[in-house]
């Protein structure tokens, strides 16, 4: 099977990989680049566990072909912390017990980050609707919403 050559930027690093046309960006990240922080929960764009940011847009990496990543800039959960310093969202998720099993956590963190980049001061309802594409079966969302609102507060500095 002829494989496509792709070069892209992932969390600021130049990467190159080969992929079959049918392979998704999610598979390329996990299987070719060994970035397994991005999870597959459904493969049909219904759970959000595979959320990543591509050229500033929040997308499901299971609904994007790896070949489409050519020349694109991709951000995953592995790129959220700066060295040893966690992103405020990451820290607040731990402090608020906003994660249990943790399988949905990387996708929710990425989605929440893209929300706060657009809207630094969201209402609870805005957070709930923005995160509606990210299923969590453990928490009932309560502590996740608290963590996102608290992180937003800290990032605004008020």
């Amino acid at each position, binding site marked *: 099977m*002829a494989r*496509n050559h792709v070069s892209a930027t992932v969390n600021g690093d130049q990467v190159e990989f080969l992929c*079959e*046309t*049918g392979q*998704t960006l999610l598979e390329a990240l996990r299987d070719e680049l060994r970035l397994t922080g991005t999870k597959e929960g459904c*493969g*049909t*764009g*219904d759970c*959000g566990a595979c*959320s990543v940011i*591509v050229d500033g*847009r*929040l*997308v*499901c990496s*299971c*609904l*994007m*072909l790896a*070949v*489409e990543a050519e020349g694109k800039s991709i951000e995953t959960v592995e790129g959220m912390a700066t060295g040893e310093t966690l992103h405020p969202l990451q820290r607040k998720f731990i402090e608020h017990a906003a994660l249990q099993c943790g399988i949905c956590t990387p996708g929710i963190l990425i*989605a929440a980050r*893209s929300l706060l980049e657009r809207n630094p001061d969201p209402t609870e309802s805005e957070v709930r*609707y*923005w995160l*509606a*594409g*990210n299923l969590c079966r453990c928490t009932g969302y309560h502590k996740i919403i608290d963590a996102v609102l608290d992180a937003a507060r800290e990032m605004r500095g008020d």
Partner: protein
Amino acid sequence: MRYEAPKTLEGAIALLSAANGQARLLAGGTDLLIQVRSGRAEPGLLVDIKAIPELRSIVAETGGYRIGAAVTCMELIENEAFARDWPGIVDGVKLIGSIQVKGRATMGGNLCNASPAADSVPALIAAGAVVCIAGPLGRREAPVKDFVLGPGRTSLGNGELVASIQLPRRAPHSGDAYLRFTPRTEMDIAVVGAAVNLTLDDKGVCRHARVSLGAVAARALLVPEAAAALVGTKVDEAALQRLAAAASAACRPIDDKRGTKEFRIKVAGVMARRAAVIAVERARRQS
């Protein structure tokens, strides 16, 4: 399966024509990829149209808009001028999946996918939108209401593709709205969808109206009887009741895992009525 990302419309058309049916167009891919992964679609060639500048742009022209077929839902939602003129279409586009899905999905794809439940289509029909089609024999235009023939079927011929969708100039005191019913607040396929687009005169009397319903027949319907219930009225209670009745009467739904016939028929009227109320408010606000 081969992948091509032509930079021109002509290039895309050439690839499509050459593939005689073996090619599928890739815009947002949020429907196509699922079909391919599940084996329901096995194209030999994927033609990615996102590298074609014309298809990626939103152009305001002659008071209306030309929306490129590969413009993503999020790009359209974030276009403030468009959202001001056609809030009902944006209502529909906002409901096409999660934020993640809308970051990739396109209104053109929503239309070409030809699902009876497509969320952007009723609002486009109510708006009187026109599809701009390009193909080996040149360009042609078709009203959205005639473009979708049935589930998964459109009027596109071999080698043809949708280049853009055109919205007409807005008359003063016009407003539109789209509402759908789903069991969850998000992440669902419409069980019923209703779009109302209307124009009032200076006295607040409805002079022009178009009503369209989704997910209640093999394709989205234009319902003139429902529109007639509004025209000439101030969209009062009596008119709204006639609108709801006409909308329900126009339904030809099926029973499926998402809803029963009787539920769809009843709720179509409810949604049409509620959409009309929003559309009127918007029209009154529009100078």
